[in-house]
């Protein structure tokens, strides 16, 4: 019985989390970085819900709902930031968005 055990859900969630982390650390396209962050939040949601089912408590569901609300808030701010940065630099490369990090790149 694969679908009835906690470990198989954790394996799927960890694979998704690793793919998301891989997208954040090794891609440069800022849209792909944003989507990888969303994917990691989804993997954490899956872990929360599987553990809630495992312990038979609803608290995991509540945490997953709060993660979804935070992801919605993050989506609004992140996408408007991307629009502002794209208007200024005309590029989606995350390497050139470093005006807060160094003075000389202004």
């Amino acid at each position, binding site marked *: 019985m694969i679908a009835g055990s906690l*470990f198989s859900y954790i394996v799927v969630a960890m694979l998704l989390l690793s793919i998301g982390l891989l997208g954040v650390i090794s891609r440069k396209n800022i849209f792909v970085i944003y989507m990888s962050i969303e994917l990691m939040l989804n993997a954490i949601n899956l872990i929360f819900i599987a553990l809630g089912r495992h312990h038979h408590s609803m608290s995991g569901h509540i945490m997953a709902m709060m993660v979804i609300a935070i992801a919605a808030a993050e989506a609004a701010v992140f996408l408007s930031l991307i629009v502002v940065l794209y208007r200024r630099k005309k590029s989606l490369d995350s390497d050139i968005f470093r005006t807060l990090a160094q003075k000389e790149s202004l």
Partner: protein
Amino acid sequence: MLDVIFLLLSSFAIGGALGMVLFHQPVHSALSLILCIIALSGLFALLSASFLFMVQIIVYAGAIITLLIFIIMFLNVKEANLPKEPHKNITLFLGALGLIPLNILILRAFYKLPSSFLEKNDNFGDIKPLGMELFEHWLLPFELISILLLVALIGAVVFGRKEEA
């Protein structure tokens, strides 16, 4: 039967996630992310979280990814505006090698847990017990989430405004 559904859904989810990381065009990445998210909502339904199944489809696939695709089309990104990633496959491979120890650590920790699920009530995961739990034990975080959403709304409006000279 449930095993077959689980294997199908998880392979769709992992395939969609891999496609999202590997595709060059952002629109293709967003479409494969939608596939991944819908397969994940099916996994939520397998875990008898029927309310979160609907929330996942409505909020994620319906609102967030649609907003993302809308922004991608609104920006009208050309090939010249995309970053050139000549060593993409090598960095992805090296990153995957670096993430193996983390996975082994966490999966070993979970392997020790008792693996089968407890018996569930009839209405586990429905909207009524979720609402009871939310308003009995989690009232303050719920209200703080509403403040967070208000702040994010104001922040998005401020960022999206046309700049005066």
